[in-house]
């Protein structure tokens, strides 16, 4: 039902696969709409407890499809506000873990997309490049927000100013990648990781996401107060009860995400 992406749900995991391999999965207007729609669907569905965003073919995502913009006068600001920013906000507002499975190059806004996800699993063959500067632009789609928060301001400035290629290994070293996966077994390793997340208390994971992203913008007092709210909410979930019960009964808990 989508043209530029594939969407499937299996065993609690929704996978959004960017699917324009001949264009290195570069963004088009259609793709943005479809990604947002798929994110909303996955966010709402109680069958989904973990999301994966990945790409087909050799690339994860090469950023904006520049051929899509040739010869057109672009209002850059509006372009971002209409297309990219709602997609980034949708990832943030999805209160479930979102994994970027970076199968190949993630360049420009493609890198920003990966940064906006909660966890980055990176193929040993993949690499990142903050390519904006190479065409005289600045990181967008949250690039200026997430990058310094993930790798620290010093490294972030260097990567954004030079646009240099970041190998999987280097990405792991600086905390940009959570895990390096083998290229042959990439899909299986990603699925295994996602399956683990999909069995955890989803409501609480959503609250962790909410509180931590908020926390990077709040002071200690505000964060402590916010944690108290979240603990009130988490404390009333079925998964909390199950967790305590399982602990007392010395068995493994079976979480339902509720």
């Amino acid at each position, binding site marked *: 039902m989508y043209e530029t992406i594939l969407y499937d749900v299996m065993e609690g995991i929704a996978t959004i696969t960017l699917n324009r391999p001949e264009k290195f999965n570069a963004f088009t207007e259609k793709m943005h709409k479809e990604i947002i729609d798929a994110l909303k669907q996955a966010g709402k569905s109680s069958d989904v407890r973990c999301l994966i965003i990945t790409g087909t073919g050799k690339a994860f995502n090469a950023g904006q499809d520049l051929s899509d913009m040739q010869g057109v006068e672009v209002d850059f600001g509006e372009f971002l506000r209409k297309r990219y920013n709602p997609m980034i906000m949708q990832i943030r507002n999805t209160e479930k873990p979102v994994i970027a499975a970076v199968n190949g190059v993630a360049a420009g806004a493609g890198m920003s997309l990966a940064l906006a996800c909660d966890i980055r699993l990176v193929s040993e063959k993949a690499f990142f490049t903050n390519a904006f500067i190479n065409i005289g632009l600045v990181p967008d789609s949250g690039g200026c927000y997430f990058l310094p928060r993930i790798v620290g301001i010093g490294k972030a400035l260097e990567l954004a100013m030079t646009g240099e290629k970041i190998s999987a290994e280097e990405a792991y070293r600086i905390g940009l990648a959570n895990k390096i996966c083998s290229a042959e077994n990439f899909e299986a390793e990603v699925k295994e990781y996602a399956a683990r997340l999909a069995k955890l208390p989803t409501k609480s994971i959503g*609250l962790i996401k*909410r509180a931590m992203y908020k926390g990077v913008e709040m002071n200690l007092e505000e964060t402590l107060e*916010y944690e108290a*709210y*979240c603990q*009130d*909410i988490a404390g009333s979930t079925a998964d909390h009860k199950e967790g305590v019960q399982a602990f007392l009964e010395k068995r493994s808990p079976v979480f339902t995400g509720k």
Partner: protein
Amino acid sequence: MGYDYIKAEREGAVGVIALNRPEVLNALNLQLIDELVTELERMDRDDSIRAIVLTGNERAFAAGADIGEMADEAAISMLLKDQFAVWDRIAGISKPILAAVSGFALGGGCELMMNCDIIIASETTKIGQPEIKLGVMPGAGGTQRLTKAVGKVKAMEMLLTGEPISADEALRYGLVNKVVPVEMYFHETMKLARKIAEQPPIAARLIKKSVLKAIDNPLSEGLDYERNCFYLLFASEDQKEGMRAFIEKRRPKFSGR
């Protein structure tokens, strides 16, 4: 009580009124406002109720007036009906009203919210006066109360564009008291309402009146009013009890007299 569009209940000394037209995001029609004012006045007369909570649901506090009901009106029919006059009775309620707001508080919903004394908003709240998009303007206090709440320039922006603001922005402008996770907005409002319900009610009543005086009277008049209220409280049992308890270093037991 047989209401069609609101639900009224009580929890201890707190009266709770929930707007209840979820299928139309709690659009405010004439009957709903009538029911609301009737119930507010009933709770105001009930001595055992000390604070009132007004709420909607998670998706909408109230998304505005019922447009269908208004679309075919003419100026004179509107004037004769004078449907917004009844709103003035909300401002006459003497007990503290707390709003528990989530989702849309737009148009009449925003105006209703601003009639409340304390406002707790969920993070998902959107507040605005979109009337201009329909070729009209607010008619139940929007231009007046919003301006007094957020100041001229922000009010102009909101009213002239019709675009809503987020809960966090509303907090920055002092339009709401507190922003909390959506799961907690009702709970937090009730917590605060119970705390206020424990206060001596005559003092609470005179404080509310005095604060409202500050909004549209010169300072000298307000100060004079406040001073007289302060003196008046010395006729209450709660003043005697409150001050005695303070001196005796114990918790006061207020009788409400």
